[in-house]
C-alpha cells in the first residue's frame, strides 16, 4: 500500500521528482549497448515526441540523460537504448527485468517532423546516435505518404557495433533508403567502408528538397554539416541533436548552457543555424 501510494504521489509531483518504471525486458544490441523496455508503475503512459530524452537512474548510481528510442505511437512502453560508458550507464545496462528504475521526463525539443513533410528527409546517424533518431524514423514510416525520399545514412566503428540490424532491414522494406558504412572492417564485410560523410555524396540528393537530421558525436556532426553544406543544403534545413551536461532537465541548473541556450530545455534538437555560432566556440 505504501509503495502504491508513493508511486501515485511521484507521478504527479513535477519534473524534478523521478517516477518508478519497471524494467520489462532488455535486449543486447552490441557488446556494450542494451535496449531497455520499461513500463510506468503508476500506469500513465509517458507520451513523448521523437528526439526527447529522459533523466534515468538505477538506485544510487547517478542520473543520466538518455534519448527515448521507442515508438512515439506506443507510449505505454518506454524504450531507451543505453551504451555502458560510465558508472550510471553501466548500472542501467546491468539492470535485470523486474527491477524498478527512476525516470524523469520527457524533456527537451523534438525532431521537426511536421516541417519535414513534403521534403526529402536525410537522417545521418553515427554510432549510438541512431537511437535518438529511431522514434523519428518509426513515425515517418508510419506516415510514409507525407514525406518525399526517406534516407538513412548510418556510420559505425565496425560491423559488430552497428545497432538495430534486423529492424533496419524492415525499414528498408517499408520505404527507407539505407546506406551503411563502417570506419574499418575485415574481409567478411561486403558493405561500405569509410566515414559516414562519404555516403552523402552517394545518396544522390537534391539539396533544394533536403531536410537533414543528424545525431552522433559532435565531431562527426561537424563533418556532416560541412559536407551537407558543400552539397548545397542550407544550415536552417539541418537539425542536430546536441549533448551537454544535462542535470535538471528543465533549464534551471544551467549546467548544459551553450551560449544563450540551455540544451536540456531549448534542445537537444536544434536547427543548426541557431547553434552554429556556439558550436564553433571551443571553450563551450
Amino acid at each position: 500500500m505504501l509503495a502504491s501510494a508513493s508511486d501515485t504521489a511521484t507521478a504527479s509531483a513535477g519534473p524534478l521528482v523521478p517516477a518508478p518504471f519497471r524494467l520489462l525486458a532488455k535486449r543486447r544490441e552490441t557488446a556494450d549497448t542494451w535496449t531497455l523496455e520499461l513500463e510506468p508503475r503508476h500506469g500513465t503512459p509517458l507520451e513523448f515526441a521523437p528526439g526527447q530524452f529522459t533523466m534515468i537512474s538505477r538506485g544510487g548510481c547517478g542520473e543520466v540523460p538518455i534519448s527515448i528510442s521507442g515508438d512515439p505511437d506506443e507510449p505505454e512502453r518506454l524504450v531507451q537504448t543505453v551504451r555502458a560508458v560510465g558508472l550510471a550507464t553501466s548500472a542501467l545496462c546491468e539492470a535485470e527485468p523486474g527491477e524498478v528504475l527512476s525516470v524523469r521526463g520527457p524533456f527537451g525539443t523534438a525532431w521537426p517532423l511536421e516541417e519535414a513533410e513534403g521534403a526529402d528527409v536525410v537522417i545521418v546517424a553515427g554510432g549510438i546516435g541512431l537511437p535518438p533518431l529511431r522514434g523519428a524514423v518509426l513515425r515517418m514510416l508510419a506516415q510514409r505518404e507525407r514525406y518525399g525520399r526517406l534516407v538513412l545514412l548510418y556510420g559505425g566503428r565496425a560491423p559488430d557495433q552497428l545497432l538495430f540490424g534486423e529492424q533496419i532491414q524492415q525499414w528498408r522494406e517499408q520505404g527507407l533508403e539505407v546506406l551503411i558504412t563502417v570506419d574499418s572492417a575485415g574481409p567478411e564485410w561486403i558493405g561500405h567502408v569509410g566515414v559516414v560523410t562519404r555516403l552523402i555524396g552517394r545518396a544522390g540528393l537534391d539539396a533544394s528538397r533536403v531536410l537533414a537530421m543528424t545525431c552522433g558525436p559532435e565531431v562527426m556532426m561537424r563533418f556532416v554539416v560541412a559536407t551537407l553544406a558543400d552539397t548545397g543544403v542550407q544550415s536552417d534545413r539541418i537539425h542536430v541533436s546536441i549533448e551537454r551536461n544535462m542535470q535538471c532537465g528543465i533549464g534551471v541548473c544551467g549546467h548544459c548552457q551553450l551560449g544563450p541556450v540551455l540544451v536540456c530545455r531549448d534542445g537537444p534538437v536544434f536547427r543548426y543555424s541557431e547553434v552554429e555560432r556556439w558550436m564553433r566556440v571551443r571553450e563551450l
Partner: protein
Amino acid sequence: MLTLAQEIAAAEVFAGLAPEYLDLITGCGQNVHFDAGVILQREGDPADVFYLIRRGSVALEVHHPGAEPIRILTEGPGEPVGWSWLFEPYRWHLDARTIQPCSLIALDGACLRGKCEQDPALGYELMRRFARCLVERLEATQFQLLDVYGNARVGV
C-alpha cells in the same frame, strides 16, 4: 547502358573536361570485368593502371602477415580507384580487391602520364582533380583516426 565515353564523361573526377581530353582519356580506357574477391593491385605494384568503377565496389586494404587484411575504404560506382599513377614513385600504396562482381574501366595511367608531360594544361587539370580526391581522402582519414564512435559523447 552508357558507353565507355559517356561513363568517363559522367564521372565526377572527369566531369567538365574539354571534349578532346575526354576523347584522349577514353582512348586510354577499356572495359574489364572481375568476380568478387579478386585482387586488382597489390601494395608496391607499379601504378601503371587505375580504374573507374562502373558497377560493383572495390575495397582498399592494408595487409599484415598472419592476420586478415584490414579494409579501410570502399569505392563505388562512378568513383576512381587509384591515384598513384599520377604521383611518384608510381606505385600502389594499398591492396585493391573487388568485393562484388565488378565492371570497371581500366585506364592506362602510364600512357596518360606521358600525355600530361606533353600537354601541361591536361596535366594541370588531372593533377588538380586527383589532388581533390587526395584531399577528400586525407580529410576522411583524419576523421577515421579520431575514432569518434569509440570515444566521443553522443546525443543524449
